[in-house]
């Protein structure tokens, strides 16, 4: 019997797992895909929003303000990269300038610190690459950036070290309420787990999970956002996250540096049906590029590394839905956790912890380890550190990914860490191998060979990501 089953290994599920792993509880996270951060958490803007455009009195406004403040401490404890780089929202005409004024007033009412209106000259002094067509900008110093999957992996690793069990390729196919007030959770139509509390953090599929218990909940209406990622030469040309004035669908197309030093442009917004549809579309991407140019001219197509898209798990309700199931005590649903869900992950975790406390007594664990150390990034070390490391583990001296200078030692570490990588994409997200200028053209094969060797599986059974995505070749039958 588990005390708590968390359905979903995205940033929300992992943040809740990490928060609850402070207490004497048996916790299992069930993830349908092969790794954490494989859905909504993997592909988004990576912005820790200030929250100036949230509605007063909403859950989003409250949790955004708190979550944003929690990031400095969280980043120190879990050793992931967090930069409070600040944001600017651009106005290109008087109507938009008026909107900036409203956003500032709204932000001030919500208690967001440091908001100020900048003239064109002031804005361009801070960010020289901005368009000459702007007439004003809202300065938002508390806005920040993270790498969303680095954050999710950090939360998961720390939760695992503190005793949380992670089960991957474990799709929940049923939840049944038992007479004694506990729950049976069916995995892959076969295994049955048993828990006192069930937390539904299933992102795009949170409506489906809720439907297993029969209580009507809001339907997820997936909405796609596409992005362009530019190389680091472009990333060096900008420091702030630059938004255009928000629309109903998005917080405005942004141009932002990433914590890894690239430049990101996106997202657009498109309602779709299929929750697995993350295909990018040339027409939409070209439109996006034009919008990006409006904020920051001179984004050459030749500097684009790749395009990708992510899905927003929207509902017809503008706010987050974080509620105990109306008919089932101990079942907590988190539905419609779209933007600013990343910002709110740590504050949502606290909010859910308080809800759990109503069903289960929480006793602090003295053995809780609050800190986690990031993987050794070989290039970030000093020569002395590198030499000491290579002496101990010669594999750190063997560079495998030439573009990003990732060593064999880092790939080995990515596989053997807590909640280690089991796929090529898992290693990519933990090390950046295959993510550089050549996008894996040169190193896919050597990287795959190392992963297969460390996992002790034949090369042909190594997957790029999910089942059926064989990364390297097939065994000839016969």
């Amino acid at each position, binding site marked *: 019997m588990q005390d708590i089953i968390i359905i979903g290994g995205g940033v929300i599920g992992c943040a809740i797992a990490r928060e609850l792993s402070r207490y004497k509880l048996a916790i299992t996270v069930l993830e349908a895909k092969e790794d954490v951060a494989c859905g909504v958490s993997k592909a988004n803007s990576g912005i820790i929003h200030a929250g100036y455009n949230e509605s007063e009195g909403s859950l989003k406004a409250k949790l955004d303000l708190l979550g944003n403040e929690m990031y400095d401490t969280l980043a120190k404890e879990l050793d992931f990269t967090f930069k409070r780089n600040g944001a600017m929202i651009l106005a290109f005409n008087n109507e938009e300038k008026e909107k900036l004024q409203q956003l500032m007033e709204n932000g001030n009412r919500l208690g967001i610190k440091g908001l100020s209106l900048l003239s064109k000259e002031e804005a361009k002094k801070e960010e020289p690459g901005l368009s000459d067509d702007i007439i004003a900008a809202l300065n938002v110093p508390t806005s920040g950036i993270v790498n969303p999957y680095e954050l999710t992996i950090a939360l998961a690793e720390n939760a695992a070290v503190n005793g949380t069990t992670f089960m991957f390729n474990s799709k929940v196919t049923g939840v049944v309420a038992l007479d004694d007030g506990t729950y049976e959770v069916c995995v892959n139509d076969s295994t049955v787990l048993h828990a006192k509390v069930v937390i539904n953090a299933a992102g795009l599929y949170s409506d489906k999970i809720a439907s297993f218990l029969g209580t009507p909940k809001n339907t997820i209406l997936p909405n796609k956002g596409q992005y362009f990622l530019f190389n680091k030469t472009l990333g060096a040309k900008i420091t702030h996250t630059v938004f255009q004035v928000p629309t109903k669908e998005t917080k405005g197309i942004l141009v932002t540096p990433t914590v890894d030093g690239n430049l990101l442009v996106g997202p657009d917004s498109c309602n779709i049906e299929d929750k697995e549809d993350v295909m990018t579309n040339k027409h939409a991407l070209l439109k996006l590029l034009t919008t990006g140019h409006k904020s920051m001219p001179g984004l050459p197509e030749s500097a684009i590394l*790749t395009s990708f898209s992510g899905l927003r798990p929207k509902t017809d309700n503008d706010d987050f839905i974080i509620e105990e199931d109306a008919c089932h005590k101990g079942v907590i649903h988190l539905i419609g956790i779209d933007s600013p869900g990343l910002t709110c992950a740590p504050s949502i975790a606290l909010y859910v912890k308080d809800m759990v406390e109503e069903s289960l007594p929480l006793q602090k664990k003295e053995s809780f380890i609050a800190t986690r150390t990031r993987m050794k990034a070989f290039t970030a070390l000093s020569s002395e550190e590198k030499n000491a490391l290579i002496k101990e583990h010669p594999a750190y001296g063997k560079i495998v990914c030439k573009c990003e200078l990732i060593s064999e030692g880092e790939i080995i570490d990515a596989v053997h860490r807590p909640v280690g990588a089991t796929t090529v994409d898992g290693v990519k997200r933990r090390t950046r191998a295959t993510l550089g200028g050549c996008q894996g053209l040169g190193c896919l094969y050597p990287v795959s060979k190392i992963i297969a060797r460390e996992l002790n599986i034949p*090369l*042909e059974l190594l997957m790029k990501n999910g089942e059926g995505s064989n990364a390297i070749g097939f065994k000839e039958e016969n």
Partner: protein
Amino acid sequence: MSNYELVIIGGGASGMLTAIRCKQQGINSILVIEKDPVLGGALVSGDYNIFSSINKTGKEYLKELKVQFEQASINTLVNTMAISINDNMEILCTSPENGVQMIKADTIVIANGGKEKGRNAVNMPGDRVSGTYSIGTAKKILSDAKLSLGNHIVLYGVQHLDSIASVMESCGVKIDAVINPQNKAFSFAPAKDATVYNGYDLIQITGEGRITHITVKDDIESKTIPCDTLLFAHGWLADGLVAMRSNINLNPETTGPDVDQHFMTSRDHIYAVGNGICIHNSMDEIIDEVDVLANILSLNH
């Protein structure tokens, strides 16, 4: 710190040949740095003719070069990656055996060869699936891993196919379709029964996990082609990474370092040669270039 008169970054055809010629011209203190465990670079797996004047494969030529290289007794560091050159002409290197080290040189020649050209992010949207490989990776899957590529293979581009032709033939690989954006003639035995889409371009990759089909388009129509493997044959580009990290000006056309008529880069005493500057059509061209460079270096010596 070790100190050499001449350090050559890259132990492939250009690097080995530069070392041999410079030694013959009287430069004694030479070091060749090679990232792989053995010398030879692209020649190591070159089972096709690389000359225009004669008929000789890369492997055959490597045998000859090795004999000359050993006779010249040139210092080499293999399994060692040169990362960058600092302002004091010191090369930052890393290797599993020796860790991180700095090697100082009076003169440096960048001879780090070429790399395959990747997919253009703008013109290649779609799903992020497995089953898309460069020709180099496909060759390793067949010859090193001894695995099959897939059952329905589509080739996108028709450049530098000679490097994989014999491996594909010996493995019995058959190509279903060829997307030939440049609409130029080609002959490639594994594709002799393939449907050829001349003048079409790839506009979308689709699949869940593994690639399942692609969409191609010409001026008139678009077509869907089912496949489980897509091979990119887009030719090669110079590998300008070391030059880039060493603040050397790059040529955006070739992606290699910009060089003057003496093969000197934008930094004094740093030269480049071979496919590291731009992709050459044959070994003959590289031999001529190395001869000129060796003369220049020995005169400066």
